[in-house]
């Protein structure tokens, strides 16, 4: 049984001009001891789908799914109080902005022991001992004195370490990391990623890593899910994805990696992720796709079962677009 199992998850936001679909029929599973990366540009619905799992979306959001199970328990069907027993204990999450994700009015120690107080049967001395142990585990020097610091007295990297310590305090079975390194210095980024992976290996928890960096994916993940405009366009083991991407979007993302560029100019994907008002009729990527034909623009693409579930009319195999009529006819 998978740790987390999600089928056909859709999240819509109520806006002044109707409903905006931020996540559109996304499915995936996470197993214990597995690292799943979710990749995509800003606005592709990566964070929103994970916030939906946590139940942290604002009241303007409507979440529907055929299945959203954690260890076989239906997250959507259970009551709020019951769900709070899982959130923060068995599923934990860390966020993008460590500086604003910690409450400026409370000491690190207070915020660190809060989840322990809520979920674990520990007295005050035990909680404090655990907090010191956690800070040491995430590599914060002089943990005893740090417990009495306020977040503004620590650096961004230190704060993210505190966030990680907080998230793993109740030994979660699944940790969701939402772009945990985006707001940090490059040197700190590698340290934080290493720390997350070490903890994942040591504890055997499942890790979902949301990122927009293919470089991070290559270093960390075992399986990759690529999202675009709220849809999952491809999913593959990391090796296969880098070797033979099946969706043109994945291929374009990989081509934009500086390490892979062999021209003078770095290739880029023209245009932007469609928003609420410029959503294309057929394939959502068609306005930016080098292979797009009239079919792509009018018909919703099928999922290619054998080729990484690529959501494409002409999936790539070894760089060749299968069934594509050719560039001349495409235009």
């Amino acid at each position, binding site marked *: 049984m998978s740790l987390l199992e999600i089928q056909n998850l859709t999240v819509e936001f109520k806006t002044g001009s109707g409903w905006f679909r931020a996540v559109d029929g996304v499915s995936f599973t996470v197993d214990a001891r597995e690292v799943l990366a979710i990749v995509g540009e800003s606005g592709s619905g990566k964070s929103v789908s994970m916030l939906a799992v*946590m139940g*942290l979306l604002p*009241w303007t959001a409507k979440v529907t799914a055929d299945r959203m199970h954690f260890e076989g328990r239906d997250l959507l069907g259970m009551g709020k*109080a019951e769900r*709070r*027993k*899982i*959130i*923060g*204990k068995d599923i*934990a*999450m860390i*966020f993008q*902005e460590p500086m*604003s*994700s*910690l*409450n*400026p*009015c*409370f000491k690190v120690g207070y915020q660190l022991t*809060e*989840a322990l107080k*809520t*979920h674990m049967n520990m007295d005050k001395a035990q909680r404090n001992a655990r907090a010191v142990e956690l800070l040491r585990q995430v590599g914060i020097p002089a943990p005893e004195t740090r417990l009495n610091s*306020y977040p*503004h*007295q620590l650096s961004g990297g230190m704060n993210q370490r505190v*966030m990680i310590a*907080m998230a793993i305090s109740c030994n979660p079975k699944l940790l969701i990391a939402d772009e945990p390194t985006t707001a940090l210095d490059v040197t700190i980024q590698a340290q934080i990623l290493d720390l997350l992976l070490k903890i994942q290996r040591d504890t055997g928890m499942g890790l979902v890593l949301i990122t927009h960096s293919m470089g991070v994916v290559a270093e960390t993940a075992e399986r990759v899910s690529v999202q675009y405009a709220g849809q999952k366009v491809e999913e593959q083991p990391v090796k296969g994805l880098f070797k033979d991407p099946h969706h043109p979007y994945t291929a374009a993302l990989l081509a934009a990696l500086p390490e892979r560029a062999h021209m003078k100019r770095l290739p880029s994907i023209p245009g932007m992720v469609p928003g609420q008002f410029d959503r294309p009729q057929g394939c959502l990527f068609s306005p930016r796709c080098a292979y797009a034909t009239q079919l792509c623009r009018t018909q919703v693409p099928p999922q290619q079962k054998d080729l990484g579930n690529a959501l494409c009319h002409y999936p790539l195999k070894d760089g060749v677009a299968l069934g594509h009529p050719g560039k001349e006819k495409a235009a």
Partner: protein
Amino acid sequence: MFRFLLRRLALTVPTFLALMFVTFMMIRLVPGDPIEVRRGERGISPERLAELRHEMGLDQPILKQFADYAWGLLHGDFGVSIITKNPVLQEFLTLFPATVELSICALLFAILIGVPAGVIAASRRGGVYDQSLMGLALTGYSMPIFWWGLILILVMSNTLGLTPVSGRVDLINYYYPSVTGFMLIDSLLSGEKGAFLDAVRHLILPTIVLGTVPLAVIARMTRSSMLEVLEEDYVRTARAKGLAPYRVIGIHALRNALIPVVTVIGLSVGSLLAGAVLTETIFSWPGVGKWLIESIGRRDYPALQGGIMLISSIVIVVNLLVDLTYGLINPRIRHAR
């Protein structure tokens, strides 16, 4: 910390001087002087008038009068009331506890209802409760104090007979010496049966009338501040820990949301004392507000001037204290000093 205090105190000196000058001149702009007001229908001979004016120094050039007054004030001399011949400071201190008692009750009323109301409104944003509460707050804010007081007296005291119309305590049934000047404490100290409840009953209406405007301001401020804070990342973090909503809202969000609310509470102390002038007059509450109104009628220059100076220095001190409490709530300010 100490330097910060000194700097803040130094800044109040020019404020104080300007205030003294403006009130001094404004009071004398009111037509008539203490003697003309008192001479009655039979009149007074011009010679006697000039003599009395000379006695009080009112025939001096106005700047000379001001300089004399300022010199006295610098030595802690607030002058003597023209009407009662008592020192102004002594009169003020006798009446002030009544005003303080009323103001504290009104402020507590406003905070204890306003903050929870704002928090609940924010956490149910856009709902029926939110909209009706904010509608009420706007009504309360726009309500003229004198009208609101009269309506409450009419309904609560006259029609329903629930509360007394005026005063601080029923003097026919209860008599006891004033120890602290605070009726709630004195009535308890007296040990007289029912005295405390009677004092409370007298306080209810004035408290509501004086507290209504601050209540509305605090509720609206708490709501908007809460709405802002609830969108913050750290509130999401708190919810991600699986904390119960009351902990997320009541501890993580409220502590941050209170920072601007404390400012508003501090500022409302000034408007409370101003509102006390009207409220005390409506309810015949023997405090400094009623005393000031009477002093205007009698053109009692020293009493008016002294009263205004004392009240404004209290407002200045309270605002200073409010500045200091920021550090208690917000650690970022505490460490920045």
